[in-house]
């Protein structure tokens, strides 16, 4: 699809708007994590079970902890884990994808089999298995998520590299005696960086959602940690007694953060590769 001259600037402007939104959201979460009074997340910071109001924007839970402070802390945790796991996932995808495409049929067969295997177990089940194996806690969450989100990006990278591996400059480079590792790292990897960037940003929402899901199910953090999943699972028993704010606010804020990042990912993709996304 050809891109008209008029469309390009609009795509770029949209991208900048999305980027600004994400930056503001992240800045707010970080600032909130630093500035909000940590005493607010301890019990009896306010009257227990009070609905949202001016003093407690998101209300308080049954122990009188301020839900707003807890939610902001939870989002900070989600973002931190999201960046870490998405980065690890992207690196795994890049290494395996490039290796599969460049290092011959054997390596390709092996990596394709591993990818098949990893896709063959449902995402969440695989994560639970990994988290169980590591024994929960932060390492369980990080490993469980980082090792289960790389497959589709690895396939994309592999397809991309297969397209450029026959290019003349690579053949010349090989003829001049460059080692395969040099070619893979110095000549192929820079070309797939845009793809990796898009992959990273698009992986991010999934990663955050799954982190919340895992913590909700009870893998991962200790119950005192203000993670979004834990806030929601703690709130569950009190929801039937009408404390809706315990469920609604942490979820909505998480939803908004995920939406902002997903939008940003789509727009980066549109600008970098107009053919794949018909805006």
């Amino acid at each position, binding site marked *: 699809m050809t891109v008209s001259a008029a469309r390009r600037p609009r795509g770029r402007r949209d991208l900048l708007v999305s980027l600004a939104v994400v930056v503001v959201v992240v800045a707010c979460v970080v600032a909130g994590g630093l500035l909000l009074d940590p005493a607010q997340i301890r019990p009896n910071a306010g009257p227990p079970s009070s609905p949202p109001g001016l003093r407690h924007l998101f209300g308080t839970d049954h122990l009188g902890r301020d839900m707003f402070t807890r939610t902001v802390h939870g989002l900070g945790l989600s973002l931190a884990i999201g960046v870490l796991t998405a980065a690890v996932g992207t690196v795994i995808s890049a290494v395996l994808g490039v290796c599969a495409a460049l290092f011959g049929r054997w390596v390709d067969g092996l990596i394709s089999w591993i990818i098949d295997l990893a896709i063959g*177990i*449902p995402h969440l089940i695989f994560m639970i298995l990994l988290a169980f194996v590591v024994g929960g806690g932060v390492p369980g969450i990080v490993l469980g998520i980082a090792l289960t989100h790389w497959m589709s990006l690895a396939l994309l990278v592999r397809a991309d590299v297969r397209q450029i591996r026959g290019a003349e400059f690579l053949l010349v480079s090989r003829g001049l005696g460059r080692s395969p590792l040099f070619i893979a790292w110095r000549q192929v990897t820079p070309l797939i960086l845009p793809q990796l960037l898009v992959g990273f940003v698009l992986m991010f929402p999934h990663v955050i959602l799954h982190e919340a899901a895992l913590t*909700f199910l009870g*893998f991962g953090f200790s119950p005192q940690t203000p993670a979004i999943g834990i806030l*929601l699972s703690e709130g*569950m028993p009190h929801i039937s007694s009408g404390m809706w704010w315990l469920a609604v606010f942490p*979820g909505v804020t998480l939803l908004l953060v*995920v939406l902002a990042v997903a939008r940003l990912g789509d727009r980066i993709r549109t600008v970098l590769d107009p053919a794949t996304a018909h805006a």
Partner: protein
Amino acid sequence: MALGELTVLRLLRLATLLAGVSALAFTLVHASPIDPIQAYVGADVGLTDEQYTRLREHWGLDRSPVEQYLAWAGSILQGDLGVSTLYKVPVSDVIATRFGASLALMGVAWLSSGVLGYALGVVAATRRGRFVDRVVSWYSYTLSATPTFWLGIVFLVVFSVWLGWFPVGLAGPYGVPSDEVGFTARVHHFVLPALTLSAVGVANIAMHTREKMTDVLNSDYVAFARARGESPGQILRNHGFRNSAAPAVTLQFAYFSELFGGSVLAETVFSYPGLGSTLTEAALGGDVPLLLGIVLISAVFVFAGNTIADVVNAALDPRVRSRT
């Protein structure tokens, strides 16, 4: 390629996949810090060293990991998945009693989200840029960013707590033996988890169908059909459905994996006694045989979805058929 040959190839693939999954799962669990004996007897029961060693020998835990894996895989091949340490009954029994409930849940969600999602996608594509399209796109976009379990909680708040239409959890009323629960009561407890799973599933298929249908409607052959004087309805019937149904069906079967994951969350939120909530219990309670059993079942489930997708795709699309 002949059909027989293809079937053999698929079975071979399933066999290597299962061997891989079981080996992977076994290796992982073997490397985990959880002690199966302590998990079995419970954390608060003290064992003398002698009892401990005898249990180890009894279970074959003193043998090498490879021997243990082969013994485990061998008994699985004979249909013996081991004994659940939480429920103290064979794993196959636990799975058999729970899988039905999960299948019903996933089946209903799968069908309704597929049909509704496809319909919404078609409507959005034919009214592209208009109000309906915006609503569908907005819905899909938002739902794809929504945590499944949170949506379940919201439904719980709205329909069970505020409106009082549905009970708060469980597959039947509290305190009534499961074989005495009537059909209406079952349906009553079934609606909200099914609704949650469906609502999430719609997003994926609607977005995809919208893109696919838009491509079709912008294609040269549709322009030609329009020039020949076909009405919008005829164009949809003659070109739109045929070209967008196959990818949609493929996508929906490939969705089995996400569906299974979603059912874990939905079942846990609504304490629905299916395979998903059992998996959570097994993993949190250190019930290794049950956990491994469910992992294997889920792999077969996903494989079945992908295989059906291939077959259906070949049946619907003559281009794919001639290629294989």
